[in-house]
Structures are given as structure tokens and as C-alpha cells.
């Protein structure tokens, strides 16, 4: 994938740079592996007892994660920044983004959003293949009665791996691939708001993949992708791989999400108003926003599992005051919005593709956007429909039935918009359109069958069986995967500069759609006949349905082979694509294919919406005649960093990260209250005593003092009093150090014995988490800020201090809430 393009305005052919091996993926792999082995050996030697294997693996995974990122070069910038080195120059930024570099830029920490998008694309395709192979193994097993091919335990692991891989893949398939490559171009920006964070979120995902795949070697995990406690607590070592995958994945999503939202909010080109934003951008932005809000809940649930497994807490052990319901609530609070995280980008993409191939504007654009916002808000209120059969009183299920039914309203509005768009349009059945139409058809089936699952009486029959499975495959695969394939065929020419073979594409479509329908419709019938999920044994009364389903799976295998062949041949030797093969009107179709390093060398002014077909070609107006306007071309080539807008970006991103952390913290605090309400006091607390209230009050007061000192110092910026600024920031940092020591002392003062009861588990968790946040944010980040401050290079960058100030206040607020909880509830 050469970076040379025919239309790039370079006078001389660019020289290819020497390949940089360190830092790159190679150094990352080496450093990560070595660190994992070394740490693993150390921990294995230091710890003994029943938890030795879990402790070893978790520490090894953590070491792999951290040191891979160090090795790939992700930490270079923060360290440089903290040591007070000068800002990177524009040339250095371009080098980091892979200017004049060949294929190797895909194998290192590269900040160009297009490179990151392609990295995600290849990773998604590989993961999808692995998950697909697992699904074919499932269908192979289920073709005949009895457990013929795999043992039940192995089958369970395959099902769990398939589920987790596919869930992870469907979450990132559109948001990360299209979101990274296409969305910045669609809004007229030259890159994402935080290019380095963008690359970081990709490489974080990359570290999660070996962790996930190592589960196979470690004996798999028996819980399926939902990871329910208490089986998760008791399972063998493979469960740790599952938990760590989730932790890393959630971090990657939070960072990617705040990057995406900040980009779309702050970097739209002039004229790209919210009312002209393509629905692809809406779908991806809302999806990533929802993801960053709810994923920390899953992370919290899994962290509690890890603590139960490695340390000996009892969040989920009923005999010691815990409860598996806690896991279910925290998991499904994430789990339901997650399916909308998966769906919304596909909805957005389809709502963009259909108008292009019917040559009509999107019908009721405002309803589509309103519907998507409504879905985001409502999705956080319906999770208890996954808990209908967990043992709650029926009366508690009623509000969830209502809200789940209600969520079909905004979804339905979007469907009506699509139908309205198709009505009397001049439909061209190109491959993207075929997949988009199939999306509408498949998702309709998926959505309607969901209604049966929303209502308790019918769900009584269909829960936990193949009907449910077929429902969510119709929505996830029939919806999102088809949406992804539509997007893939649509944007492939733009991303690679080549056209996919149209007839192979159509063949792929028909094979996939027929295969897909053939695999899952019989499973609805099998579900009605009562076949449960996660079971290797097929009983005779559902044998026919399963056989038909497995035979159609062969059709899907064929379709994947066709796709693979198509991609490989077209990418290497396909027909060159034109700039705008589909005749679309969004901004990316005005740029050359593939898009060069700098998307928009000239400023962009958007004057029309993306769906105003019949009004001439796409517009890229606002190219001022450089001579006439007396504008220096050099100014455009190296844009001066706009401090005002950078401040907005940093502040917004910080608030979003705090929002994400708020979910994690709320999950902990509400979980504490929830378990207290569910148990009698004796069960919950046993003989565990309260932590030192005086200590925690002092720590809370200290946090407040630190935040106030920081705010006081910040006000020195206004008056230009740099001594005040330094004094304030340094004082805040010192107080935070003292507070950290305070946390450690309080923790030392807890004289609990293992295994901890639920109360002791929560108290320890609160204190440790608070100490970690003190450590990470106030101390480490504070040290970096101090370093930069004292080197004098923070001048004019008020936003750095403002953002850090937000964190200080947030830590202080949580310290106060934590102290109140510790003092009042036992």
C-alpha cells in the first residue's frame, strides 16, 4: 500500500524512508513476551496455594499489556512531554503519521487515522475468520445427534470463544474501521482529535488478541461469553484470559470512544452543521459514546471476578455475603446497551448507503437522528429483560417489559425512514445496496422476534434456547455484519484505490444471504421445539432442523471463500477505482482513491447536505484562490495549532473519560448498596470491622484540599503569576502523595483475614481503587504536568491544567462519597 498517489502535489517522487525497527510491533512483541515470562516466573515463585496459577497468569497478562505498549512506542510521547522536551514539530508529526513510508507503517505505532483504520480492518477480518471457524466447528458438532466431534467441555469453550470473538469483532467492525478511516474525512477533518490516542486504542486491542487466544491453550473457559459468576470464580485458569481480555478491551473502547466523540464535536469543517452530518457519523458517534458510558460496568464486573479468583474476595460467593446477581446486574447493564453499540453504526451506514443507490434524499433525516438518540437513552433502561429468569419476583419484570417494548419505537421510526427512502426511488442493485437491503430484511426478522423475547409470557418458552440464539444472530449478523459488508463494499474503492470484482461480490452476497437464512431460520424452529443453548448433545426431535442448518453453513463457508478470493485478487490486481464510483455526495468521495496522507490540504467549506441528489456533483467549495486572497500556502501546509480549539478538545475528552470512570465507580458503590440490601447484616459483614473512619475522613479532606490548592494555583494563570501556578500545582501534588500514603495506611489498618466477606471485599476494593486513582492521576499525571510546568513549556496551555483540575475535583468528590458510604453503611 504505497503512500504515493498520482494527485499528490509533490514535485519529486518521494524517497522511501528507512524502516524503523524500534519501536515497532517487533520490539513490542519481544518486550511484551519477555516481560510476561519474567513477571510470570517471579509471581509463580512468590505465591503459593490454590490461587497460584491465577495470580501468575493475571500478572503475566498485565506485564504483557504494559510492556508491549512500551515496546511499540506508545509511551514515548507522554514521557517526552513530562520530561519537558520541546513540542514535536510539524515534520516530526508527519513522520509519525507515516509520510513517505511504505507498508511498514502498518506495523508500528502510526498516527495517521487511515493507517489505524486499515490496521483495524485487517484485525477485524482475521478475528472474524477465527470466530467464523469456531462457528463452523459448532455447526459441525450440531449436525448430528449426540456429542460426536468434541467433548462437551471443549464444545463449551468453542461456543464461548466464538461468542466473545464475535461480540468484540462486531463492536469494532464499523466504529473502529469506518469510524477511523472514513469519519474524519466525512466531517472534513485531517485527522482525529487525538491521533496518538487513536493508535494507542488500536494497539491495546492488538494486545487483547493473544490474551484471548491463549484461553484455548489454557483449557478454555466454561461460562460462555457472558462469564457468569459463580462459575467464573471456580473455573480453571482459562477464565483469567477471558477476564483480562475484557479489561483491555474496555480500556481500548473508552479511549477510542472519547477520541471519536471529541473529533466529531470539535473538528467538523465549517458548514458541516449537525443537520448536515451523514448518518454514518451519527451512528458511529452515538455508538462510541454509549460504549464509553456502559463498558466500565462490564469491566467492573470482570474485575470483581478477577479479585475473587486471585485475591480471595467474595463479591460473588453467596456463603460469604456475595451474590451472583451482582454480576448479572453489572454485566447486563452493559450487555443490553452493547447490542445497540453494535447496531447503531450499521443503522447509520445503511441510512447513508440507501439514498446513494436510490438517488433520493434520506427520508425524515431528523427522525432518524432522533430515533438513534432515543435508542441510546432508552437502551440503558431495559437491561433487566435479560434477568427475567434469574429469580426476581415477577412484579419487578413488568417495567422492563414496557421499556423494552418502547425501544422498538425509535427503531421502527428508522425503518420507516428507510422504507420512505426506497419508495419510488431509482434503485441500483450494486453490491453495497444488496447488503443494505438484506440488512433491512434480516433486521426486521430479528427485531420482530425480539418482541417475543421482551414479553415475559412468551420469553418463558423461548429463553435460553435456540429461538433466542436465532433472534440475536438475525440482529447481530443479519444486521451489523451485513451493514459492515455493505460498508466494506462501499468504501473499499476509496480505501484501497481498487474495485472489487462486481460479479464475485454479487456471488458472495447471494451465497451469504441464502446461507445465513438457511442456518438460522431452522434454529427458530429448533428453539420452539425446546433445544437449549450451549449444549453439544443434539436430541432426535431437533435433529432435522440442525442438520439443515449445518448444511447451509457450508454455503456460508463457500461465501467466505469467495470473499477472501475477491479481496486478495482485487486488492493486488483489481481494476483501479475512480474517485467517485457510486456517485455519492459525502466529502470522502471528493478525494483521490486511496486517500493521501493529508486529506484536505486546503480548507473545506460545506454548503450542502449529503443527500441533496439532483443538485450537481459533490461540492468541495471554499478553495480560496491563494494568490487572490493573499494567503500564504505555507500556512495551509503546516497549520498552526489552534490553542482555543485544542483546549476545547482536551477538556471535552477529559470530561468524557471522567464520565467513563463515573460508571465504574457507580458500579462499585451501587453494587455495595445492592449486596447490602440483598443480605442480612450478619451474612454481609461477619466479624469484619469498619475501616478507620478518621483515616478516610482525613483522606477525603486531603483530596478536597489538593483540588482546592490546584484550583488556586490555576487562577494564577489568569493573572500571569507563574509562581502561584507552580506553588498551587506542587502543593496539590504533595497533598495527593500524602493522601496516597493515607490510603496505604488505612489499608494496612484493616485486619481482615482471607477469605474476605462481602463487606471486607468492598472496603478493600474501595480503598485500593481510590489509592490507584490517587497514584495514577494525581501523582503520575501530576508529576508529568509538574515536569512540563517547571520546564516552562506549559505556557499558554491552560487547558492542561484545567483538565488535570477536573480530575482532582472528581477524585475529591468520590473520596467524599466513599467516606460517607464507609461511615454509614455496615
Amino acid at each position, binding site marked *: 500500500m504505497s503512500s504515493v498517489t498520482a494527485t499528490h502535489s509533490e514535485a519529486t517522487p518521494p524517497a522511501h524512508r528507512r524502516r524503523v525497527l524500534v519501536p515497532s510491533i517487533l520490539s513490542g512483541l519481544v518486550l511484551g513476551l519477555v516481560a510476561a515470562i519474567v513477571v510470570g516466573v517471579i509471581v509463580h515463585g512468590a505465591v503459593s496455594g490454590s490461587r497460584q496459577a491465577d495470580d501468575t497468569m493475571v500478572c503475566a497478562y498485565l506485564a504483557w499489556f504494559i510492556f508491549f505498549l512500551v515496546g511499540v512506542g506508545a509511551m514515548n510521547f507522554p514521557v517526552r512531554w513530562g520530561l519537558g522536551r520541546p513540542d514535536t514539530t510539524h515534520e516530526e508529526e508527519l513522520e509519525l503519521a507515516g509520510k513517505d513510508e511504505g507498508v511498514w507503517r502498518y506495523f508500528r505505532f502510526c498516527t495517521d487515522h487511515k493507517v489505524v483504520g486499515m490496521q483495524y480492518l485487517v484485525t477485524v477480518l482475521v478475528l472474524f475468520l477465527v470466530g467464523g471457524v469456531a462457528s463452523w466447528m459448532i455447526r459441525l458438532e450440531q449436525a448430528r445427534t449426540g456429542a460426536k466431534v468434541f467433548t462437551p467441555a471443549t464444545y463449551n469453550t468453542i461456543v464461548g470463544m466464538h461468542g466473545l470473538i464475535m461480540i468484540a469483532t462486531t463492536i469494532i467492525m464499523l466504529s473502529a474501521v469506518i469510524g477511523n478511516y472514513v469519519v474524519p474525512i466525512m466531517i472534513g477533518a485531517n485527522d482525529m482529535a487525538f491521533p496518538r490516542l487513536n493508535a494507542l486504542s488500536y494497539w491495546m486491542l492488538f494486545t487483547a488478541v493473544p490474551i484471548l487466544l491463549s484461553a484455548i491453550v489454557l483449557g478454555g473457559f466454561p461460562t460462555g461469553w457472558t462469564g457468569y459468576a459463580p462459575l467464573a470464580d471456580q473455573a480453571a485458569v482459562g477464565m483469567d484470559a477471558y477476564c483480562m481480555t475484557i479489561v483491555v478491551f474496555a480500556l481500548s473502547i473508552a479511549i477510542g470512544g472519547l477520541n471519536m466523540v471529541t473529533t466529531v464535536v470539535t473538528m467538523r469543517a465549517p458548514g458541516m452543521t449537525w443537520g448536515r452530518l451523514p448518518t454514518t457519523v451519527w451512528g458511529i458517534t452515538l455508538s462510541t459514546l454509549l460504549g464509553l458510558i456502559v463498558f466500565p460496568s462490564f469491566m467492573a464486573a470482570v474485575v470483581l471476578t478477577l479479585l475473587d479468583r486471585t485475591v480471595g474476595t467474595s463479591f460473588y460467593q453467596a456463603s460469604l455475603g456475595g451474590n451472583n446477581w451482582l454480576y448479572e446486574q453489572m454485566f447486563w447493564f452493559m450487555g443490553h446497551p452493547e447490542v445497540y453499540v453494535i447496531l447503531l453504526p450499521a443503522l447509520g451506514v445503511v441510512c447513508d448507503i440507501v439514498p446513494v443507490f436510490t438517488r433520493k434524499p434520506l427520508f425524515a433525516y431528523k427522525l432518524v437522528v432522533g430515533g438513534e438518540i432515543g435508542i441510546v437513552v432508552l437502551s440503558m433502561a431495559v437491561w433487566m429483560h435479560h434477568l427475567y429468569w434469574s429469580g426476581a*419476583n415477577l412484579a*419487578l419484570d*413488568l417495567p422492563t417489559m414496557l421499556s423494552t417494548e418502547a425501544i422498538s419505537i425509535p427503531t421502527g421510526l428508522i425503518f420507516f425512514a428507510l422504507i420512505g427512502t426506497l419508495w419510488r426511488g431509482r434503485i441500483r442493485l450494486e453490491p453495497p445496496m444488496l447488503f443494505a437491503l438484506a440488512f433491512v430484511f434480516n433486521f426486521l426478522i430479528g427485531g420482530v422476534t425480539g418482541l417475543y423475547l421482551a414479553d415475559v409470557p412468551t420469553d418463558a418458552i423461548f429463553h435460553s434456547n435456540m429461538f433466542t440464539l436465532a433472534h440475536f444472530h438475525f440482529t447481530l449478523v443479519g444486521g451489523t455484519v451485513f451493514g459492515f459488508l455493505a460498508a466494506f463494499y462501499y468504501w473499499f474503492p476509496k480505501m484501497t484505490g481498487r474495485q472489487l470484482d462486481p460479479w464475485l461480490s454479487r456471488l458472495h452476497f447471494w451465497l451469504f444471504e441464502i446461507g445465513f437464512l438457511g442456518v438460522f431460520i431452522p434454529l427458530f424452529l429448533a428453539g420452539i421445539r425446546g433445544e437449549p443453548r450451549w449444549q453439544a448433545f443434539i436430541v432426535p426431535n431437533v435433529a432435522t432442523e440442525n442438520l439443515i442448518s449445518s448444511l447451509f453453513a457450508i454455503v456460508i463457508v463457500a461465501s467466505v471463500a469467495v470473499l477472501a478470493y475477491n479481496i486478495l485478487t482485487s486488492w493486488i490486481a483489481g481494476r483501479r477505482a475512480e474517485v467517485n464510483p457510486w456517485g455519492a455526495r459525502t466529502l470522502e468521495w471528493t478525494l483521490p482513491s486511496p486517500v493521501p496522507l493529508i486529506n484536505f490540504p486546503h*480548507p473545506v467549506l460545506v454548503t450542502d447536505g449529503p443527500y441533496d441528489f439532483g443538485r450537481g456533483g459533490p461540492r468541495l467549495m471554499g478553495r480560496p484562490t491563494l494568490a487572490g486572497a493573499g494567503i500564504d500556502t505555507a500556512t495551509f501546509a503546516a497549520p498552526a495549532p489552534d490553542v482555543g480549539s485544542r483546549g476545547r478538545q482536551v477538556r471535552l475528552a477529559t470530561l468524557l473519560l471522567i464520565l467513563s470512570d463515573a460508571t465504574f465507580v457507580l458500579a462499585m458503590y451501587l453494587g455495595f448498596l445492592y449486596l447490602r440490601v440483598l443480605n442480612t447484616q450478619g451474612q454481609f459483614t461477619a466479624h469484619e470491622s469498619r475501616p478507620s473512619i478518621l483515616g478516610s475522613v482525613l483522606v477525603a479532606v486531603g483530596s478536597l484540599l489538593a483540588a482546592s490548592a490546584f484550583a488556586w494555583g490555576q487562577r494564577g494563570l489568569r493573572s500571569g503569576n507563574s509562581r502561584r501556578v507552580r506553588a498551587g500545582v506542587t502543593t496539590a501534588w504533595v497533598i495527593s502523595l500524602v493522601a496516597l500514603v493515607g490510603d496505604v495506611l488505612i489499608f494496612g489498618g484493616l485486619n481482615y483475614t482471607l477469605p474476605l466477606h462481602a463487606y471486607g471485599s468492598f472496603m478493600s476494593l474501595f480503598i485500593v481503587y481510590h489509592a490507584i486513582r490517587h497514584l495514577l492521576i494525581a501523582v503520575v499525571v501530576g508529576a508529568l504536568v509538574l515536569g512540563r510546568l517547571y520546564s516552562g513549556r506549559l505556557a499558554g496551555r491552560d487547558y492542561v491544567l484545567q483538565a488535570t483540575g477536573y480530575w482532582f475535583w472528581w477524585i475529591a468528590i468520590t473520596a467524599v462519597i466513599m467516606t460517607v458510604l464507609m461511615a454509614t453503611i455496615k
Partner: protein
Amino acid sequence: MADSLPLGLTWAAFWLHLLGERLAVRRTGRPRSRTARRRALSFYAGLLAIVIAIATPIETLSKQLLWTHMIQHVLLLAVAPPLIVLGAPWMSLWRPLPLGMRRTVARALALSPRCAPIRSLCRALWRPLVVLVLYTVILLVWHLSALYDLALENTDVHALEHLTFIGFGILLWAQVIPSPPFRPSLAYPGRIAYLIAAMVPNVALSMLLAFSRSSLYPFYAHLAHRPGGVSAFTDQQIAAGIMWSFGDLPFVIAIVVLAIRWLGQLDAEAAQLSAGAPGATGARAEWRLT
């Protein structure tokens, strides 16, 4: 007597408003505009919600079933106030009073030094944070077992409960919905944050009711029979569900509407800024909370 006070006030408000609308037509010589007619309908819908809450079998069943009582509360707290605020009935309610009385009262309230405490009270009450705190306190206080049961036993207290619900509900919703001549002081993002903050105690209270292990209100727990034969415990859980879903629904709808309006406002501002100089990047308007 006291229990018919809210109903009486509702009827009075209805007739007063009707009269005020007729007077407006007569005095200006023009028929009412579409906005005014829609506002009137919204106001009457709000009054209808109050009537449904307190003058239908919902009222009688409330004494036997906690979940019916919850429906009544949701109507009075979350359905009627936003509709009334949307209806902006204030001028039409004020208009039918005689001109002399209106002038005297208005002059006294606005200028007289003796009314200064009233003026400072009104100013204090109009702060969004104060209203939020008072609304939350009223909501939580009336759900304490002792007071909840007292309201069921004593009709005066019950009328007071209903009046405070409607009154503070109106004050809360007036902070987010423009109700001429009153204007919210919060900008759109502030209004969205405000509504989310107002939802939190509602959700927390309904979770407490839902997951508690025992019956919280002795008045209902001690009833021998309940219509439908539900147990006190189930009754409480159904009530919690209604409070959670129906109680939050108006807030959710309002948040979605506000979000869309906010984006429209951002677009209008951006269009204004770039209207002067095509190709100018222009500093985008900073969003503020107030």
C-alpha cells in the same frame, strides 16, 4: 373539605383560563394564534391529568393499592407539571382579574418595600439549584414511611402532599421548558444535565422500593385484602416498577427533545457566524452550562 381543595383549584384554573383566552380575543380583536391554541390544549391536558389523578377511581384505589397510588403520584409529579408549564397559562390566568386589582397587586409586589421579603423569596426560589434541592427533598420526604402513611390517613395532609407535588413539579419543569413570561436561565446542555440530576433520586428511590426485602409502608402492609389478591410485597414491587419506568419517561422524552433542539441551536449559531465571511473558520460558540 380539604380534599376537594385541589380539585376546586383545578376547576377554577380551567374556567379562569378559558375566560382569559376569550378576553384576549376580545381585547386584541384577533383570534388566538396557533401557538396560543396549542398552549391552551397543553394546559387543559395538564389539568385533565390532575383530574384523572384525584377525581377518578385512581383516588379510591390508592387507599388500597400502593401501585395505584404510585400512578397518582406519577401523574401529579411528572405528567401534569410539564404539560402545565408547556401550556404557559400564566397571562391567561391573570387577565380575567379586574384591571384595578391587577394594577394594585402588581405594583405592590414589584415596588412596595413591604413586599421586599416576597421578592427576595421569589428570587431565591427561581434559582435552578434551589428548586432541584427542594424538589428532591419534597420527593424523598413524602416517601418516608411515617409521612406517607400519615397522608393516607389524614385528608388535609394528603391535599398538602398533592399541592406540594404539583407546585414544586411546576417549578422544576419551568427551569427547563420556556413558559412565557418565564424563561429558563439554563442553556441547553445545562437543562439536559439538570433533568438527569432530577432523575437520579427518582431512580434511587424506585430501586430502594424494588429491592427492599420487606414491606416499607405499614398502611398497606396491614390491609387484610387487596383488589387483585396481590400480596403487599408484590404490590410494592409493582409500584417501584411504575415509579421507575413511567416516572422517568417524561424526563427521557424531554432529554431527547432538548438534545435535538440544542443541536439545532448550534447549527443556527454556526450559520450566523459563517454568514458574514464565506470560508471563514470563525470561533465556534462555546457551550456553557448557564
